[in-house]
């Protein structure tokens, strides 16, 4: 991964540099017009968040039951990414809602559950920071329950119909709006690459911290 990191950063930078140009060039959606263009990064950020949640859930299970140190590093790194992508997802959704729904915020089931999900992972990070010795295990349990919440957030628009579009939007997008279909998956690819790069950098930080702790202990001995 060390050799691939810099070339992948270049690829990601090029993809993110081109994305606004492609979004500007894609045709307008017929009912929402310009504001629908928020969708490309909005959807991609929730996909990136989902990827980070999967990593956090798996890493939390491994750390909780096997105690593998590297799994703990992946857990905390991916939890941080969940919060970052979640904040952007909620913010972009709020801007879109201002135009599409006429309000900055709506207590729609999807929006409310997504907020709760982000708060669970914010709680994970606070437990890690302020929980003292042993907080890694508590945080790992939170990570597992946070990951278990994610499918409910996804299905919330189908189960409790409200103002947020349901999951059929993506199923029919390819037939109705092929330009948007291609572009949204381009953005998803760019965001998933970003997840890989940020996760790698953040895990390296945790590895260095562990090495520093080991050095302090060696010096004391």
């Amino acid at each position, binding site marked *: 991964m060390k050799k691939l990191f810099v070339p992948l950063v270049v690829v990601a930078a090029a993809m993110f540099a081109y994305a606004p140009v492609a979004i500007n060039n894609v045709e307008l959606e017929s009912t929402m017009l310009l504001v629908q263009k928020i969708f490309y990064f909005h959807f991609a950020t929730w996909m990136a968040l989902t990827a980070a949640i999967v990593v956090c859930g798996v890493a939390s299970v491994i750390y909780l039951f096997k105690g593998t140190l590297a799994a703990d590093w992946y857990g905390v790194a991916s939890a941080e990414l969940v919060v970052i992508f979640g904040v952007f997802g909620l913010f*972009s959704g709020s801007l879109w809602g201002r135009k599409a729904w006429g309000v900055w915020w709506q207590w729609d089931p999807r929006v409310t559950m997504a907020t709760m999900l982000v708060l669970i992972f914010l709680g994970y990070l606070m437990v890690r920071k302020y929980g003292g010795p042993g907080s890694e295990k508590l945080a790992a349990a939170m990570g597992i329950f946070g990951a278990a919440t994610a499918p409910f957030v996804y299905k919330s628009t189908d189960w409790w119909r409200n103002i947020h579009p349901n999951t059929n939007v993506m199923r029919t997008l390819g037939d109705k709006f092929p330009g948007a279909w291609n572009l949204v998956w381009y953005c998803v690819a760019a965001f998933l690459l970003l997840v890989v790069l940020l996760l790698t950098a953040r895990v390296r930080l945790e590895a260095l911290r562990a090495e520093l702790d080991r050095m302090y202990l060696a010096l004391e001995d």
Partner: protein
Amino acid sequence: MIRRVFCACFSLAAMSARLLAQPGQEGFVPVTGPVTEQIPAAPLVISSYAFFFVLLFLYVWTIWRRIGRVEADMRALERRQAEGGPRR
């Protein structure tokens, strides 16, 4: 006394509710003449993308700064070890 205060409060609330009540809309009114959209979309779209890039750069900067701080601590510790390191 309590009964009088309660009656006064109840009467006041009932009067306020009657005064504040708006008549319900009885039908839709068609637009006459040209109309423009009330909420422009461009600032919302630009704000969304700008916020993402600012958030991303800030996050990358915090990771870079935290890694730099840990590496500086490691270098300082290695120097102490090389010098025969005073025990804490």
